[in-house]
């Protein structure tokens, strides 16, 4: 993999390569070059299999990390391309014409992270959720427990006691 990264480096801005395992590498890419890079990797380097496309929310840095995981089945090499995009008005470039199955991933990202993929087929249709009006739920600032408590009813009659406080009271009743 090092060879490949070195080979590509002169032509693409690749940063921060992580050689996680012998068969797994992660590398940062830029948005302008993503498309060309993916096409080259698919057509010339044998990375023909799109394993997954997902996002990681680095809310502290105001970034979404899009991970394009592609696989070369012949050489048994997996390459994860990390693309950082701005978290506000997040937008990615659709790659459904390179891999048709990416359209599904992009639909999911649109719904669960609120990342727009203009041009991707049916990307704005509801995918998993139905009647969802809140913020995209996979964003870090969405608190699922708080939402759940504010939306659904839980069975009442449960209360718990802190062992620390109870024991303190038991041993030192006067305080």
């Amino acid at each position, binding site marked *: 993999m090092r060879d490949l990264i070195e080979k590509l480096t002169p032509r693409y801005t690749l940063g921060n390569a992580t050689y996680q395992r012998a068969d797994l590498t992660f590398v940062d890419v830029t948005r302008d070059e993503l498309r060309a890079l993916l096409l080259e990797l698919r057509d010339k380097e044998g990375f023909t299999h799109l394993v997954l496309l997902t996002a990681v929310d680095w809310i502290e840095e105001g970034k979404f990390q899009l991970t394009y995981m592609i696989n070369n089945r012949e050489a048994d090499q997996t390459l994860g391309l990390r693309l950082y995009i701005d978290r506000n008005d997040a937008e990615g470039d659709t790659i459904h014409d390179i891999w048709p199955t990416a359209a599904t991933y992009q639909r999911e990202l649109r719904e669960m992270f609120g990342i727009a993929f203009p041009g991707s087929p049916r990307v704005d249709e509801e995918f998993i959720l139905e009647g969802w009006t809140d913020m995209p739920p996979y964003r870090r600032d969405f608190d699922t427990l708080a939402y759940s408590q504010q939306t659904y009813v839980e069975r009442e009659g449960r209360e718990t*006691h802190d062992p620390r406080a109870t024991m303190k009271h038991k041993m030192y009743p006067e305080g």
Partner: protein
Amino acid sequence: MGSLRDVLSPFTAWKHVIETPVTIKNPIGREAADRYRGFHQNDTDKCIGCGSCEDICQNAAIDMIPVDNPKDGDSGLRPQIDYGRCCWCALCVDVCMTGSLTMSNEYTWVDSDPDAFRFIPGVDKMPWDDFEKGYERQGDRMLSGLTRPEMAELEPEARIGNFDEIVAGYSREQAVLEADRCVECGLCVATCPAHMDIPDYIAAIREGDYDLGTQILYETNPFSEVCGRVCTHKCETVCAAQYEGEPIAIRWLKRHIIDNVSEERRLEIVGTPQVLPTGQKVAVVGAGPAGLTAAYDLARSGHAVTVFEAQDKPGGMMRYGIPEYRLPYDALDRDIAVIKAQGVEIKTGTRIGTDITLDQLKADYDATVLSIGLHLGRSTRVPGSDAPGVEAAIDLLRRITAGEEVPVPKKVAVIGGGNVAMDIARSMARLQKQKFGEVGVTVTALEDFDHFLADKEEVTESFEEGIEILDARGPQEIVTFKSGKRKGHVKGLRTWKVTSIFDEQGRFTPQYDEGDEMVHEVEMVVEAIGQMADISLLGDELTEALEWNRGRIAVDADGHTSEPWLWGGGDAVHGPDVIHAVADGHKIAASVNVALMAKAEAEK
């Protein structure tokens, strides 16, 4: 249409029509596998209610519910499982600190009432309570560590000839390893008389945030150096980790924090009082842990505090009762420096009754705190206990600290099995080693080793240092020279084997086996069987006026005596224990503060 075989072959399925159906005849209530994870069981006698199960449950299925008649050392809570949440993952069983929680292989529970699906295993009776089969953890607990890291300490040969501190304290790696074992149940917090936030400062160690750790320590205890070394660590006796492994070394972890924060940094973290002076004056009698803690708290509340100390240096029993190899004096000085930095004035060498009277304090100060400690040794009162050569341990220790000359004979017997006995025995051993190059100390204790009063480490270390410890031996007589040049001087100690110490009512009435008699040939006998307060300084009038409780000054829950201007605390009121004294100091300070603030308010 394909070959004929394709048409006919499927009919072979019909051969099954003559076979007996494979159906289970009576499936309802069929026994599940031996390891099956069904409904919970809990051995409530073993359970300590630490709540680790509640912490690990990712379904929030477990509530801790108070139960009747809890035993000592547990929180009085037992887990209640909500089967509207449980997913039968058994992480609670895996994490259980005592191994009390298990799962039966029962799995059927149907009910039309949705609120019925919760119960307290072991408390609420369930049909599967007695099931033998089911899931229990295989082997040791794997989800948190079992053993303490070994701490570096001086070898016996290296330490016996001097008063250097023995233990080195944890390294960063060791401390993190040890801190990692904590399950943050907080039983220790409850047990600690000062209610130190132990899990929190242990967490600070894991994070490597020693500043935060120091801050947490100072919230509840200004004597971290001291307590990090010599605390009686009651917390460790209830530690949830002790049931299947060793308890967390809480004391050493506390010391680890304070070791990693320089004195200057500590002063920065603790800072100085952040309130305006109230104009109220407080006198504290005795610069021991209780008095200094009270002084620290009161000073931080904005009161002017003066501490009167009879000895030359502050610290009280911490300095004069604990040998240097356990608590180096500079460690104590560092603690006291922080307290002094709060504006506390310490007048050493000022003895109440001789240099200044309590009446004067009453007149000059708005409140007085009495924390005079226990500085008089108790005597066994066996025949010969008033002979020359019989010493009180507490007195000897004070003299060693103060640098006074103490007699060091070749053979010494120590009566007593507590930590003070160990202290004096080991101190004498060091002096003997320095003087003669060999150790000749015999400790005779009433208790047997199973019920020994002194800490385990003390005993082991004493053995390592060549001290002879005889358990279950009661002193009968201190034999003296009947004649000769040394007539009347100690010649030896005669002891009997102890068969029992307490009677059926729990009263102290030792029984002896008179046939098992030993006479220890010694030149000096040290009595280390307890201490008492020197109440002579109170003066007759005050002694009359105060209420008493079994020879100790009676105080209410806030440390207030029957005299409105006088508070009392520390060893003199509650018996000897540093951390207890600290807790007392806090309590008194709070009470004094309330009184003074009211007074200041009234004066305005």
